[in-house]
């Protein structure tokens, strides 16, 4: 098995609404990642993506759009997968195993503006939703709100704690020129923001945008000959939990992140205390809180105080979501978390740079599925 590195990372244009096709955004992100790596499309022989709910384009589309002669490996990863980290882990493992030499992993998000959240459930509803929708339970925000509420009940987590998560990520976004939300917020702004579903306010939710991100993955040996310093892909894991149903999960105070953490730390001598920067999935504020606890970055139940103390700020104990996360950096479904981690480990992050960052963790997914990867600066 070969050592693997992320050699390049790039975004497309990102904004609340971009009047371009999802294909055009995707190809822009892939080209930017390739040029960042100092490679051309001729070097690529593998592609992976997580096309989400069919809201993006396929690997084949990108192969054609970049003019690749042929692919030795590709995967379009549908279904309950931990978002944008999914193709990154898949592509890294494919390079490690020798299925391909250089792979692009991408995730592009283009919002569906024809219906607001929860509005696709009129009439008769089948599948698991037949046990939810008749009771008005139709949004992911409601599912995770109920997990968050139980966590508050069991551990004393407060709305103010959640507010400090939003404040922290916004402060980081204020130092990130590509973040769509860059104005700092106060705890008063937080409490004044619209309630979506308790305990979540709009400022507890990720911020939908149009845009894409891509990374280029190759062998560490090859990456050493490229212009930028390579970021080593140390390990990546996927994890589920005891039950596939959100409501039937035994203990709603931890997510599948607990199992991802166990799997990840088993794979390495690196410990949570060695991590310099964490980019954890923040579909909602509480998702990030739970990831921090489950990964072992703070004690179980201490996630709220961890954020309220400022431990997650740049300059704090473990800077977290240094790009602003999905809540202030835009909902790019965790591919931005991967890109930010790469840029932090290369020392490219300007005002929000975590000084001397050598080891980073990226996570994605909430509730019943999780993915996590450990990256480090190559010596």
């Amino acid at each position: 098995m070969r050592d693997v590195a992320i050699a390049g990372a790039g975004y497309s244009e990102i904004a609340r609404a971009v009047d371009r096709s999802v294909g055009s955004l995707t190809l822009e992100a892939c080209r930017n990642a390739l040029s960042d790596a100092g490679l051309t499309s001729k070097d690529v022989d593998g592609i992976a993506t997580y096309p989400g709910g069919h809201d993006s384009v396929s690997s084949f589309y990108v192969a054609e759009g970049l003019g690749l002669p042929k692919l030795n490996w590709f995967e379009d990863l549908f279904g309950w997968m931990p978002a944008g980290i999914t193709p990154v882990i898949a592509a890294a493992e494919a390079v490690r195993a020798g299925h391909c030499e250089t792979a692009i992993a991408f995730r592009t998000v283009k919002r569906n503006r024809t219906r607001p959240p929860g509005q696709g459930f009129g009439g008769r509803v089948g599948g698991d939703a037949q046990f939810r929708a008749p009771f008005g339970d139709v949004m992911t925000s409601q599912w995770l709100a109920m997990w968050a509420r139980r966590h508050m009940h069991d551990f004393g987590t407060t709305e103010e704690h959640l507010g400090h998560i939003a404040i922290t990520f916004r402060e980081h976004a204020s130092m990130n020129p590509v973040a769509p939300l860059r104005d700092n917020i106060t705890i008063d702004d937080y409490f004044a923001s619209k309630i979506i579903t308790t305990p979540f306010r709009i400022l507890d939710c990720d911020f939908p945008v149009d845009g894409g991100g891509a990374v280029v993955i190759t062998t560490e040996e090859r990456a050493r000959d490229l212009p930028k310093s390579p970021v080593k892909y140390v390990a990546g894991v996927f994890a589920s939990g005891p039950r596939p149903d959100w409501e039937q999960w035994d203990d709603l105070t931890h997510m599948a992140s607990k199992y991802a953490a166990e799997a990840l730390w088993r794979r390495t001598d690196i410990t949570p205390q060695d991590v310099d920067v964490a980019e954890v999935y923040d579909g909602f504020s509480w998702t990030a809180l739970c990831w921090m606890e489950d990964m072992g970055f703070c004690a179980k139940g201490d996630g709220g105080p961890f954020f309220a103390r400022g431990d997650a700020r740049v300059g704090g104990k473990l800077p977290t979501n240094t790009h602003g996360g999905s809540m202030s950096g835009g909902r790019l479904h965790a591919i931005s978390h991967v890109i930010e981690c790469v840029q932090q480990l290369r020392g490219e992050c300007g005002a929000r740079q975590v000084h001397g960052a050598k080891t980073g963790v990226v996570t994605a997914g909430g509730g019943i599925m999780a993915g996590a990867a450990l990256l480090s600066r190559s010596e």
Partner: protein
Amino acid sequence: MDRPLPQPDQDTEFFWEGLRRRELLIQHCDECGHWIHYPKPACPRCGGTRVKPKAVSGRGVVHTYTVTHNAVPGFEPPFAVVLVDLEEQKGLRLVSNLIGVPPGDVAIGTPVEVVFTDVAPDVVLPLFKVRET
């Protein structure tokens, strides 16, 4: 817009059919004794396929909840969605709503019991009300 209604399939029809007879039926594994929800062709604990609908008491406790302020089809916000832990087994849960409790008064730990509620000519929902203990 009206509340969305269930579209049963081969695995779930017994649940909705039982409710029409004012019975709350949950799938039960005859091999290991595990209660199973949502219904499926095999037991998630032991993998056994001898799974059969069996009546439960309809008594439970509010495990968690959310008060939704967004517009959702068929509901006037704000309204509460609750997860009810049925007394038969830890973590055996139904998504539901509480009758007679203002959204702001819903609380974890509240003892509740099922109320069979007609919402369409062929659909009875298992809603819940506070249970006197």
